[in-house]
């Protein structure tokens, strides 16, 4: 089997605030070489690297906004997020958990730091991804998957107690709990210093790594420090991640949907006409109502 090589290593770009609660580095689609097509079906990646939020009485976050045409995946590494939506749904994403929201035909929602967490403040670290939907599923009904850490597949690897935590897809035939519309693998590779993980993924799947903790070497060649992003080339199937210190690496790999993308703000559709329809529907209240 051929080696999957590194195509690009990116430092975290200048952060910006989303609302007042999320201080994020946007890797996809704003970095050069990482437009919505390159990591298709992952069309957006915001990374809130470790940031200390002071204690406040009114939780920080982002107010009511709509989405249509894709899924949002929120991975809470540190801190807690509370969310509410226009269909009356809501919940708390606890540390270590993942929320997989299929916005599809449309939701209005808001996301804030959980109120008790906000009162104490602390280190907050989170990834939010947008996963595109194929045209045939863009207008399907919205749904949630609240994925607890304990439900994920935990596969022990290495000599020192390392593991691969599977959120979606499979690792060594062990399946993660998230259901996806197109083939997609999502793992947290949790390595103790000196351990390494062998990853096998189809050549044509768009694949990337984000170093959440620690420092790693990929394919025993390139060192990648904390908060750096790695885009893997579509030139092979196999690569290795070795931990230079205790590390956590988010691995994303998906089969490209290869359909036209028409995106504007919080809507991602296939044509401009569908995009205009999304704005009209939102303005006319067809996404529902949320205070």
């Amino acid at each position: 089997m051929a080696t999957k090589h590194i195509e690009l290593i990116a430092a975290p770009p200048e952060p910006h605030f989303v609302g007042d609660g999320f201080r994020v580095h946007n890797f996809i689609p704003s970095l050069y070489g990482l437009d919505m097509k390159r990591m298709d079906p992952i069309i957006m990646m915001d990374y809130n690297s470790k940031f200390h939020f002071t204690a406040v009485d009114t939780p920080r976050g982002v107010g009511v906004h709509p989405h249509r045409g894709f899924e949002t995946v929120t991975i809470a590494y540190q801190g807690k997020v509370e969310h509410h939506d226009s269909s009356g749904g809501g919940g708390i994403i606890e540390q270590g958990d993942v929320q997989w929201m299929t916005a599809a035909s449309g939701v209005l929602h808001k996301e804030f730091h959980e109120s008790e967490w906000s009162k104490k403040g602390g280190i907050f670290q989170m990834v939010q991804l947008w996963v595109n939907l194929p045209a045939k599923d863009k207008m399907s009904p919205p749904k949630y998957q609240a994925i607890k850490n304990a439900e994920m597949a935990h596969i022990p690897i290495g000599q020192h107690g390392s593991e691969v935590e599977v959120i979606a897809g499979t690792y060594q035939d062990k399946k993660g709990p998230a259901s996806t519309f197109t083939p997609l693998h999502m793992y947290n590779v949790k390595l103790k210093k000196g351990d390494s993980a062998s990853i096998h993924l189809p050549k044509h799947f768009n694949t990337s790594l984000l170093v959440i903790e620690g420092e790693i070497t990929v394919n025993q060649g390139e060192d990648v420090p904390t908060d750096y992003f790695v885009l893997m080339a579509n030139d092979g199937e196999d690569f290795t991640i070795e931990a230079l210190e205790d590390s956590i690496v988010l691995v994303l790999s998906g089969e490209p949907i290869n359909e036209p993308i028409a995106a504007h703000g919080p809507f991602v559709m296939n044509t401009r006409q569908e995009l205009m329809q999304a704005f009209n529907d939102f303005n006319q209240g067809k996404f529902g109502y949320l205070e």
Partner: protein
Amino acid sequence: MNRFEFSSYLNANVDLEPSCMQELVKTCPTKKIKKGEFLLQAGEISKYTYFVEKGLLRQYSIDSKGKEHILQFAPEGWFVSDRGSVFFHQSSVYFIQALEDTEVALLEENILNELAHKQPSFIEFNNRLLHNHIRHLQNRITQLLGASAETRYLEFIKLYPDILLRVPQTMVASYLGITPESLSRVRKEMAQNHR
């Protein structure tokens, strides 16, 4: 929120000779401002009409009680200017502020005049632009004088399909001349009618 170059706007709307176009684009500098910064503040005299290439501006005044009134939003492809200040050199009563990181082309009045002398098609274009602007203002005055909150809102979303996603609702209410509570009620009623 795609970029809208001033030169593309001109190409699409006015038949200018390439040399004139080049000169115009060359003599119109662009400026970048950060969210929250001002292009104009009350009391100043403005030299420029602004064309928004990227981002979003608002033009507003503050009344004697300290309340803000938004006259206009200017997203990509819109012009904004204080005509009293640019054309009649009066000190401005308006603030022009960026609501997002914004890039504008700066159009100086005398450049437009020179261009009109050189190229008659530009006069026609400029007239059309002014008449269109007057029509917009007439509509807006009529709405503010007598239309219901719902009618004002429906006109607003036709004119500005994506602004509601880019600014707080209090600003939209200020533009519409209604209270934020009325705007919220209108939007809630519309949402309920779709259930």
